[in-house]
């Protein structure tokens, strides 16, 4: 087959110094094997520290595995960080030549691609500016533009595209797709599951330096999501003046796993610590990136103030309609009757998971759409 990289049972460990004489061995990559073919985009996903970057670095030839074999055919161009090798004191133009040299080009070659690089980066008016004046977005643009014009056989991209504006990011992804069609193999690491799902042909899920799952993007992404449910990412945090105190929360399903049309019901128990008459209760639903999906409260939604008792319970329920599958967090809060000052506000105190939809749709939900073709 058209295989451009064959990775066979590689191992790599670091020695991390924890003190002057003590060290700890970190097994970053723990027996990984995979192949990479022409015209293929292979994504690697996993938690931080699961060995993604180390694996990319090994394929890029930057790190040598302690054990195992790796065969790479053709030119590998790694794009693992922002403005690597750029000298901030030099102009953008001079840096293109420096970066070209770092990428292993002759000056002639860099000269040949220079105009296209500038055009692609859309930084034509800034090329004589010192690069230290550049924003991070501009760094990415320039760096990526050089990398993409290197006509690599294997292009390795680690998360960097997350910086920079969305339009340029789309342009990069389109270009990546184009060079993929022309034969380049691409290895990609990202925490953006939407990107991974839309562009990858195959996905590898890493956990503690081992391959947990490999194959169809949506399947593997789903397994990754399931994994995350056991390790919440958002931090619980609490603030407020304490007149009203939340003492307990119950959910109607102990396993916190719901279908899309299922009712999610939450009971919040509180007690009153000092004399306050009434106030507002609210909650918010947040996705696993911390994006607030919705934040209803009794004042705005029902023009209702809660008459506090010494001990009481507020129950609310809602349906998730068509939110994408994944993990969601619930924030609950009691505020004063002006809805400005918190008595007790706990972020991400509870969570639930949605399994209803088969796959993750672009955005946060599946919009109920009626299509009509005329």
């Amino acid at each position, binding site marked *: 087959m058209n295989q451009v990289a064959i990775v066979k049972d590689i191992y790599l460990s670091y020695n991390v110094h924890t003190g002057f004489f003590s060290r700890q061995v970190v097994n970053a990559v723990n027996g990984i094997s995979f192949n990479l073919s022409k015209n293929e985009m292979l994504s690697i996903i996993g938690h931080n520290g699961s060995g993604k970057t180390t694996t990319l670095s090994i394929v*890029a030839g*930057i*790190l040598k595995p302690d054990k195992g074999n790796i065969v790479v055919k053709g030119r590998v161009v790694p794009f693992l*960080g922002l403005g690597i090798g750029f*000298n901030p004191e030099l102009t953008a133009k001079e840096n293109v030549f*420096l970066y070209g*040299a770092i990428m292993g080009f002759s000056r002639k070659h860099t000269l040949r691609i220079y105009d296209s690089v500038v055009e692609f980066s859309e930084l034509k008016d800034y090329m004589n500016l010192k690069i230290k004046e550049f924003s991070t977005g501009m760094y990415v643009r320039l760096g990526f533009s050089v990398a993409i014009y290197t006509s690599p056989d294997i292009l390795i991209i680690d998360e960097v595209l997350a910086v920079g504006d969305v339009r340029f990011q789309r342009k990069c992804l389109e270009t990546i797709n184009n060079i993929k069609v022309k034969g380049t193999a691409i290895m990609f690491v990202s925490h953006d599951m939407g990107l991974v799902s839309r562009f990858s042909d195959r996905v590898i899920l890493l956990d503690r330096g081992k391959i947990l799952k490999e194959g169809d993007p949506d399947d593997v992404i789903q397994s990754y999501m399931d994994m995350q449910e056991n390790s919440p990412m958002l931090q619980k945090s609490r603030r407020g003046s304490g007149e009203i105190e939340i003492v307990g929360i119950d959910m109607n399903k102990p396993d916190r796993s719901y279908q899309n049309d299922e009712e999610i019901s939450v009971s919040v128990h509180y007690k009153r610590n000092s004399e306050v008459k009434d106030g507002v209760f609210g909650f918010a639903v947040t996705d696993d990136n911390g994006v607030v999906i919705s934040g209803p409260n009794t004042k705005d939604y029902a023009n209702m103030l809660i008459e506090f008792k010494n001990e009481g319970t507020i129950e609310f329920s809602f349906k998730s309609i068509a939110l994408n599958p994944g993990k969601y967090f619930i924030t609950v809060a009691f505020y004063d009757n002006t809805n400005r000052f918190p008595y007790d506000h706990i972020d991400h105190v509870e969570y639930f998971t949605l399994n209803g939809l088969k796959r993750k749709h672009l955005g946060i939900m599946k919009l109920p759409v009626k299509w009509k073709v005329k």
Partner: protein
Amino acid sequence: MEFFTRHINLLTELIKSDLKSKYKNTILGFLWILFEPLFMMIILYIVFNKFIRFQMDNYPMYILSGVILWRFFINTTSQSIFIFYRNREMILKVRIPRLLLPFSIVLSNLVITFFEYIVYFILFLLAGMHLSWTMLFFLPYLLLFAFFTAGVSLLLALIYPFFKDVKPGWEIFSQALFFLCPIFYPFEIVPYKFIHVYLLNPVAVFILGVHEMLYAGVITDSTIILNSVFFSVIVFIVSVLVFLMNEEKMVKSI
């Protein structure tokens, strides 16, 4: 061959980038390369012609010939010591021959040193000193010293990510080394019984060689040449080998 030209290109780009970032933001720019030895000469002239007098003709020229070489050595080594550590992003994220990083520092300093010696020659002629054919040996001799310096620099740069102590250690050590070189005093004042120990200092040996070629204009003593070659070859080869053996370890712990 293509491999070779690519590396040459990377090396030139790194040297250019280093020189540009050193001088580009200054008003005088690259003229600084010429001014530095000139100013130094003025100071030396005032101090050693008016205040302190040695029984030696053109004593400031004697000092300058050695001081330029010393500056090359000390500037290169003290800049190289951080080179891997400072460029760890680059080392971890692109694939480049890492040896070229310290070597580019050696070469960019060599360019500066070359121009400083041109100023030296101009002053040499202005001082009414006589040119000698022994000066022809100077360029290859300087190159030889560059190999020695490259060896030392590479070793220091390799050790630094593991032991940061190497930096203050090197500062103290190189200060001692400076006083153990015949830069500000004539070699003749070194007592005879210490000479063998004194000549274990490679930099002192090189400076003796430079004095003979550029100042005295006599045929350089063959022991000096042999010792210089010996030091350069050994130091360079050993440090490249040590580097290659420990490169992976360094990359991982950087």
